């Protein structure tokens, strides 16, 4: 593992209660950062903070990101502290359904949490990010670059997030704020476990997703989190508007 130093940096991670978000929050926290921990409820945030070992560099930022007001609420603790260097829009909804089974509500929640929330968290955080010459990392997905069947709302929202990241990068570049997207492949997270259970045949679900990635495995959240720390480091200071696939080769071609 590369060792990063994020002491004196303030980082907000949305959806940090579990999975990739928790791994990102842990990685920044272990690297010395102050971490604003967001998830839907105060209980989820408290539980995540306990898992991260507690301490005064963890600040609760509970908010439900299904509305613009919720997105602004997630940024409020950072605004109160007057500091934010890195905003990681990680929170996401992924409930896989075929086209006919994708209800109006299911479509709406995917577009709200996966696409609208990042718009309004960045908007709310903009004064702080402009002051710190900070950056945004939007966690999109390889499904922001190509599609699979039975996941139409997620695919649409994540494609939107990839293009939105580019538009934000262009509009915010004059203020010195950078915006990049990462497009991870399948990760061994609770979200994936939910999807596997939901599929009715978890074992086959994991097997097919391992085979789907040319590297023959799914990613660990910790390795994606390490990549987020690389992307937030000065090594990536010339990057903005990029959508970086970190997907075991799945968008590169067919095995």
């Amino acid at each position, binding site marked *: 593992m590369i060792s990063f130093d994020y002491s004196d940096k303030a980082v907000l991670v949305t959806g940090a209660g579990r999975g990739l978000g928790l791994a990102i929050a842990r990685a920044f926290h272990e690297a010395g950062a102050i971490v604003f921990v967001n998830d839907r409820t105060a209980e989820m945030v408290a539980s995540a903070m306990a898992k991260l070992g507690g301490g005064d560099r963890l600040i609760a930022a509970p908010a439900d990101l299904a509305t613009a007001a919720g997105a602004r609420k997630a940024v409020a603790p950072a605004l109160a502290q007057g500091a934010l260097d890195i905003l990681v829009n990680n929170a996401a909804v992924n409930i896989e359904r075929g086209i006919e089974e994708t209800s109006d509500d299911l479509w709406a929640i995917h577009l709200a949490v996966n696409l609208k929330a990042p*718009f309004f968290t960045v908007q709310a955080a903009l004064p702080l990010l402009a002051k710190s010459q900070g950056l945004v990392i939007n966690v999109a997905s390889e499904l922001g670059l190509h599609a699979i069947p039975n996941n139409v709302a997620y695919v649409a929202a994540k*494609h939107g997030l990839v293009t939105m990241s580019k538009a934000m990068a262009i509009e915010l570049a004059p203020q010195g704020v950078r915006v990049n997207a990462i497009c991870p492949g399948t990760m061994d997270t609770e979200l994936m476990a939910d999807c596997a259970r939901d599929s009715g045949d978890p074992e086959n679900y994991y097997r097919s997703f391992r085979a789907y990635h040319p590297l023959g495995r799914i990613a660990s959240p910790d390795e994606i989190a390490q990549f987020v720390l690389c992307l937030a480091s000065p090594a990536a200071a010339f990057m903005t508007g990029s959508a970086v696939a970190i997907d075991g080769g799945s968008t590169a071609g067919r095995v």
Partner: protein
Amino acid sequence: MRRVLTTGSSRGIGLAIARRFARVGDEALVHGVTHAAALGALSKIDGKAQAFGADLSKPEQIEKLVSDVGEIDVLVNCAGIYEDMPFATATEADWDRTIAVNTTAPWLLARGFLASLRKRKGVIVNIGSDAGVLGYAGCVAYCASKGAIIGLTKALAVELAPEVRALCVCPGPVATDMMEQSVMKAADPEAERLRWASFPHMKRIADPAEIAEAVIFAASPDCGFATGSVIMVDGGVTAGKRV
């Protein structure tokens, strides 16, 4: 004779598309925000045509449109809105309006017409934008909405093949009322028009008929092996830029 619904076909690119389908002998199902707007366009179309009104920002009106129109062979999701929208001051209502018309309406229509599209081995042609591929300042929500419709197109394509094809035609700047309204809002409209014409490598703004031509091809059996395709008709804008 195919039944072709083109949303937003009372004017602009949509009208050019409806006219072009009617000219090759298809039935043009013309849609406008109001029935009157759609009716007004019928005189500009040679061939079989019918008018339908629906506000696509309202799901219940989309549902009614689907039932009024009946079975179709081709769905062209052309209706769209563009608003200059500085990122720092855009409101939730601004965001919701853009996403409702540009992204959610095409989705609801695709799902609504799915049974007949499957039965008739139909085609869905979504109208995207160069702004669905490239990011532009001043219209972050629009870029998000058009990026999402490209994703929607691919998701429909992979799930509905081989019965139904789905493609996305992405215009660059086109001479429409929508562009005219944006141009006229500028302090110096003529300079603004020249600015729009200067950035495509083709050094001009497209005519709506040029976009219609690509849509006709996408929907034709001649294009039968293409699905999930993102067809750029943008004067070269997304290919690269000059230093």
